[in-house]
Every structure is written in structure tokens, then in C-alpha cells.
């Protein structure tokens, strides 16, 4: 695939987001899915697991705003995120979701561990669990709603990848934190998450076709390989040994968490590669025009039959 370009330069800008953002993709998913896991485990009567999951949700929910603020060009203006609510901006919607779920998680966790806010917690638990679901997937909507081809063209699959990753992250954290005999639901969640994450990401890459090249080379591929290795090893350990050995459970949880984080990094870095090379940006646009699917933004036929030199010529402009 070779395209015409201007001195090989990029057509769109690479994101300016730094390491905090892929880490937030992970912590946000961890917080969101952990809240759901905690709330449901409590309903099932597994309080040991529920308390651990609330702790994981609290950790994710507390770190997330710090990561996001730190990434801002003007961190002291972080509160400007709450000047308005805009559905056309997944970042705006997500800021409100994070605000709501973060507070709800805080109340629920304080209740689970310290017994505080007993009445408020009755409301906070389901609120945290429900808001945790969009908290886990809106980040995919956020990056899908950009001009970066590898993200935008995967707009239907990316939320599934991120949702699976959130399930995996919550399961992995709970495996590591919970005594093995109370961690059966966490093991099931982590294993299901690992399988879904791997399969949905592979499906996304396949559907992307040529757009998906950044997942096959450079850092997009490297982090993808690391994720595969960690998930494979971690899943094996979780399935075979984590139910009997606490040490194995911690190791499995750590490996699966590393896999989930690496998978987020793979998606993040692939976006940079996709934006930096004009072949990914111009190539598909030009092909769609050549195939007649799109008409493009340039037009060669004038809409006036006879040119009037008194109107058209640059010399006539006052």
C-alpha cells in the first residue's frame, strides 16, 4: 500500500496523551467492573470477596482522577470538565460517570470496611455497580470518536474489547486479594475476561483489515504479544493452582493484571502508529473514493457554465 503524501508527513496529529491515559483505561475498567463484582458478590452472600472487590474498586476509582488530571496540559483546570455535559464528547460524559461512580464506590467501600454510611451505602452500592458498566466501556467510545483510523474504524468492536478487559482486570485483582476458598467467582470472571479479551481483540484486528496493521508491528504488536503471554500464563495458573495456593493466586492475579494493562497499551500505541503514517490515513480514504463509495471533498467541475473574469480572477479582488 503506497500513497501520495506531502513529504511523507502525517496528515492528522498523533494524540498528545501520555502514559497516564492507557493506565487510566486499565484503572477505570478495574474500578467499574470491580464495583459490579463487589455488589453482586454481596448479593450472593460472599462478603469476603465483596470487601476485596470494593477495595479494588476504590483503588481504581481513587487513582483514576489523579491520572487524568496529571495528563492535562493544565491540571489545575481539571474541574473545567464539569462546566457542561455534552453527549457529543465521550470525554465529557465519561467525566460525569467517573465523578458519580467514584463517589458511590467511596461510600460503598467505606461501608464495607469501616461500617460508615450504612443507609447511604444501600443506594451507593447499586449506583456504583451500574455506573461501573459504562465507566468500563466509555473510554473505547472516546478513542473511537477520533480521526485516528485504527480506533475509529474499530468503533463497533473496541467497547467489547475494553469491557472484556475490565472484567479481566476486576477478576484478576480479586483473585490476588481474596483467600482462594472465597475467590471462585473471581476466578471465573478473570478466566472469562481473559478469553473474551483475547478473542474480541483478535476479532477487531481481523475486521480492521489494512487499518489493523499497527497491531501487527511496532509497539502495538509488542504490547499485544506481552498481553498474550501474560494472559496465557496467568489463565493457566488461575485455572490449575489458584484455588489451592494463595501464592499461586497472587501470581495469577498479577500476571492477568499485567496482561490487561498491556492490552490497553497495545490499543493506545496502535493509535499513535495509525495517526503518524499517512498511508493509514490517506490510503483508505483514497481507496473509498476510487471504488466510488465516497465522493471525497474535492470537485473538479465548476457549477458555473461560463466563467466571468470580473468575478473569478484574483486581480479583481479589492
Amino acid at each position, binding site marked *: 500500500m503506497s500513497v501520495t503524501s506531502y513529504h511523507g508527513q502525517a496528515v492528522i496529529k498523533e494524540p498528545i496523551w501520555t502514559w497516564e491515559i492507557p493506565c487510566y483505561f486499565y484503572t477505570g475498567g478495574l474500578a467499574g467492573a470491580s464495583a459490579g463484582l463487589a455488589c453482586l458478590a454481596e448479593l450472593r452472600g460472599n462478603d469476603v470477596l465483596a470487601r476485596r472487590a470494593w477495595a479494588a474498586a476504590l483503588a481504581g476509582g481513587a487513582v483514576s482522577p489523579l491520572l487524568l488530571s496529571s495528563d492535562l496540559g493544565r491540571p489545575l483546570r481539571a474541574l473545567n470538565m464539569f462546566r457542561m455535559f455534552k453527549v457529543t464528547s465521550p470525554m465529557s460524559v465519561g467525566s460525569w460517570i467517573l465523578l458519580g461512580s467514584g463517589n458511590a464506590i467511596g461510600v460503598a467501600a467505606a461501608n464495607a470496611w469501616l461500617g460508615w454510611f450504612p443507609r447511604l451505602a444501600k443506594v451507593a452500592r447499586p449506583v456504583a455497580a451500574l455506573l461501573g458498566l459504562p465507566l468500563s*466501556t466509555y473510554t473505547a467510545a472516546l478513542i473511537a470518536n*477520533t480521526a485516528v483510523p485504527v480506533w475509529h474504524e474499530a468503533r463497533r468492536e473496541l*467497547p467489547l474489547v475494553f469491557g472484556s478487559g475490565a472484567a479481566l482486570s476486576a477478576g484478576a485483582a480479586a483473585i490476588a486479594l481474596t483467600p482462594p476458598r472465597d475467590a471462585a467467582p473471581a476466578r471465573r470472571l478473570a478466566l472469562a475476561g481473559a478469553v473474551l479479551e483475547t478473542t474480541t481483540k483478535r476479532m477487531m484486528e481481523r475486521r480492521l483489515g489494512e487499518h489493523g496493521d499497527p497491531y501487527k508491528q511496532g509497539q502495538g504488536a509488542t504490547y499485544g504479544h506481552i498481553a498474550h503471554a501474560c494472559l496465557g500464563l496467568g489463565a493457566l495458573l488461575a485455572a490449575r493452582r489458584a484455588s489451592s495456593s494463595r501464592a499461586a493466586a497472587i501470581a495469577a492475579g498479577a500476571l492477568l493484571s499485567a496482561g490487561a494493562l498491556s492490552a490497553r497499551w497495545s490499543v493506545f500505541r496502535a493509535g499513535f502508529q495509525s495517526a503518524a503514517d499517512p498511508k493509514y490515513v490517506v490510503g483508505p480514504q483514497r481507496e473509498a473514493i476510487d471504488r466510488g463509495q465516497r465522493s*471525497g471533498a474535492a470537485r473538479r467541475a465548476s457549477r458555473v457554465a461560463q466563467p466571468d473574469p470580473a468575478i473569478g480572477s484574483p486581480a479583481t479582488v479589492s
Partner: protein
Amino acid sequence: MRPEASAASGLETHAWPGSYGDRAKPRMGFFTDTSVCIGCKACEVACKEWNQIPMSIQGFTGNSYDNTIDLGANSWRHVAFVEQRVSTDAREGDTFAEIAARNGAIDAGVQTYQEGDGIRWLMASDVCKHCTDAACLEVCPTGALFRTEYETVVVQEDVCNGCGYCVPACPFGVLDQREDDGRVWKCTLCYDRLKDDKEPACAQACPTNSIQFGELAELRQRAEHRLAQLAEAGQEKARLYLADEDDGIHGAGAFFLLLDEPEVYGLPPDPVDTVRDLKEIWAAAGVAAAALGAALAATVFGGSR
């Protein structure tokens, strides 16, 4: 929104977040006629001076006469220089001036043909497009980016918190973060000068009227005649870029007359405001959220405690 601008004219923008009502002005824009650009970079200089933009010396690129490289936080006008070996209707032994004269380029006032060595030089002054459907504005979570009463797109520097969402959202790569400042900056179409009924600094400085400023409706008229004029003179590759309402951004406030494919100048051939896919995007995120909920319930309740 301007009452006299009918929907069919394609001149209307979403004046989000609200309408200007009686205070709305006609939509203003740029028509950049690259066929008469001489690459003097007066637009770049005038823009820097008027808007007090920090210097952005990035070294010597070797890419023809272009050392500005691209649009960004500190370059709101960027003159592109393209050197092409032209395969025209050249016959053995023709000088390039003869070819140019034969296909009427000189009579049509096309300044981009250089004599002698068969190199075709394209020059074009690029700028923020002030899109009808502006992705940057729609994704901005703080409302720092807004639509002015002239239907241009401007960043409010006292609001921008440097979240960076607009940077990869722009299909033209116009916006960027200023180092040591943290905020995002771009062309304002000289909003301050417009308020004083003055034309933008770049348009005023342009010595060949390659950059024309005015009411968009009139500029489009002018561009149609210019395109027809060039076509008559044999410039078959001349084209208008972003002059129509049926493209992926519903046309732009700053549009161009180009002499080759857009990508030759570093412009995307089919730019799209991805917000048009927003329903699909939100639906996918919603489905995934529901699936996550189902997966959580299934794993917690489907099996031993």
C-alpha cells in the same frame, strides 16, 4: 443562526451551544486560491505578528522551501511547497514555458509554473478549515472551543485545560498543544479583527490575493468562476476542496482551490467528522456495558460461591 441562510445553501453550522439570534453575522471564511500562491510566507509572518505566536523554529527540513513543516499550536498558517516532475502533454524538446504557454497556464495567471527545468512547483497556504461540522468543537469537554457569531471555530484560552481530545479528533491535524503552556491553540480567523470589521492578518498581507477573505457565500461564487476560468485555460487538474456541503464535514469556512489531489498538499482526500458516527459508537459502548453486566452476573451466580 442567520435567518436568510437557507438549509439548502449548505452555509449553516450548528451554532452550538446556542443560537446568536439577532447578533448572528454572515458566515465568514477564507478562499485560498493556491494557483496564485507565490510561497512568500507573508501570511505566516503576519499571522505570527498579529496573534503574538511564539517562535517555532524546527530546523532545516530539506523539504523544498518548507521549514514550517505543518500547522500546529505555533503555526496557524503553513505554506506547503511541492516540487513535481510534471508529465503533461510535453513533447520532445519542449521547454516547460512552452508547455505552460500551450495549455494556457500563463494566460490564466497561474503562477506555479517555473521556467526551464521541468519542475512544477505547487504552493499552498494551509489554515484551520473552520468546518461546518467541527469535530474539535463537538468533542471538547470543557466548552473551550466554541462557534462564534461569524460561524468560525475558536478556542477560549481561559477555559481550555489541555485535555487534548481535539488534537486527534481533527481530521486535518490542525490543533496541537503548545509546549510549556499546556493548552491547545489554533487559528481564530482573527476573531478580534473581525469584531473590528477588519480582515484577518494573513489575508491582508497576501500580495497576490491567494488568500481571499469575505462572506462565505460570496467566496464560493468567486471560486466557481475561478475554477471555470482555469478549466477553460486547460487546467484540468484544478479542483475546489471543501467547497461543498456534501463532503464529510459538510463543507468548510476555509476552502481551497488546488491544482492536484489534496493529499499532494498533505490534506486528507475525504475528511470526516467522526461525530456523525456517534450513535453507532454510543450504541456499541452501551451494548458492551450491558454485556459486561451480564458477564459479571453469570460468573458470580453461575457456579459455586
